[in-house]
């Protein structure tokens, strides 16, 4: 049987569907930013940006950009009615003090038990940059990862143990990928759902974890 991997937009829609009404959410740079475009109508979600914004609205029309009003990826954004600006110490108090319900992050690697590596490949020639990743990973009530399951070489980014430098240990609760969605637990990975037509055995081959026979939440 054949299967179709989820597109980035399908993945974003899947994440968005799980964000509850009234949630305060931080969307990381890159793919997670797409989630904002898929929040279900009628659900009020407050988007936080580390540079001091609550209540981010849609992207401005071309020509209406105000570069004093940007998100963490330095893209121009808008502010919803009810939104607020605040300084960095307040913004990171929100992040570090457990005031954000959900953060959605990209990742280089995630371990089956929820260790996250998303800031540095450790390559000595790479300029390292951490930004707010470590604060979000430990501080948000729930950290979700959204990523392609496989890297460019076809290796699983869900690993037994992260080989890249850690962002934080045992912090990821859920991993949304183009093949399947997982929960991270101290005892290992739990399969939440997978794309239609993908056999469990095929998925386990892709993951190449010691743990076979994934416990599944799927009916």
């Amino acid at each position, binding site marked *: 049987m054949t299967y179709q991997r989820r597109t980035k937009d399908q993945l974003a829609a899947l994440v968005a569907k799980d964000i509850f009404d009234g949630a305060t959410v931080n969307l990381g740079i890159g793919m997670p930013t797409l989630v904002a475009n898929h929040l279900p109508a009628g659900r009020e979600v407050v988007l936080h940006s580390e540079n001091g914004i609550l209540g981010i609205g849609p992207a401005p029309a071309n020509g209406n950009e105000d570069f004093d009003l*940007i998100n963490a990826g*330095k893209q121009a954004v808008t502010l919803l009615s009810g939104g607020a600006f605040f300084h*960095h*110490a307040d913004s990171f108090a929100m992040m*570090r003090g457990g005031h954000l319900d959900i953060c959605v992050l990209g990742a280089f690697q995630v371990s089956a038990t929820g260790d996250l590596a998303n800031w540095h490949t450790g390559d000595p020639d790479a300029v390292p940059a951490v930004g707010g990743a*470590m604060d979000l990973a430990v*501080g948000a009530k729930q950290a979700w990862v959204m990523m392609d399951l496989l890297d460019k070489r076809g290796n699983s980014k869900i690993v037994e143990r992260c080989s890249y430098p*850690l962002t*934080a240990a045992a912090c990821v609760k859920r991993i949304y990928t183009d093949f399947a969605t997982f929960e991270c637990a101290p005892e290992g990975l739990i399969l939440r759902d997978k794309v239609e037509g993908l056999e469990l055995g095929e998925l386990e081959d892709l993951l190449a974890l010691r743990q076979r026979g994934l416990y599944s939440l799927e009916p």
Partner: protein
Amino acid sequence: MIDKVIDDAVQALARVKDGATVLIGGFGGAGVPNELIDALIAQGAKDLTMVSNNAGSSEIGLAALLKAGRVRKVICSFPRQADSYVFDELYRGRKVELELVPQGNLAERLRAAGAGIGAFFTRTGFGTELARGKEIREIDGQGYVLEFPIHGDLALVKAEKGDRWGNLTYRKAARNFGPVMATAATLTVASVHEILELGELDPEHVITPSVFVDHIVKIARVPIAPSGSRKDAAKP
């Protein structure tokens, strides 16, 4: 009479010495006090430790200070940007030292400096290489890392409006590190686009109260370019 308004930004920086730690506001291109950085370049202090969220892009602002060879060490959270080639080259050539700090630790270390806090324990960075060599403690079953304040000899802050006492307001997300850095330095210099009479700033809306500010300099408003934008964040 108190009058913190000064016409010449270079004169406001007269006391800055070689080896100073300089806190510079901004996030990407928003809130970077480019005109004050230009004044610091003209003033001539060198061997500086530059504390800012980023490390500049293209050749303006932070990048101009780096390019002028005035910076010995950079303390920041996110030096890598699409057009951060000035920093990248200095870093790879080992011509500038980098202390990479998680952004929340950067903000809190500055806040601690401004609030007279000797050090604090934080969960951020625990168990990572950015906590290597640092004191750790278990509190209620959770690992914490001891972090120390970052005091500035100078803070350069971009604000929106001010008055002669030094009260400041900011504009949108250009506020970012400004109010925190203003509290954390021996000498705080702010640029503003408008200087108002005392009482014209609504006291309920003052963001940085006058006590934290030493000089304010009026600058012309120039359009903020999307400098610091990432290539992959380009708008469609």
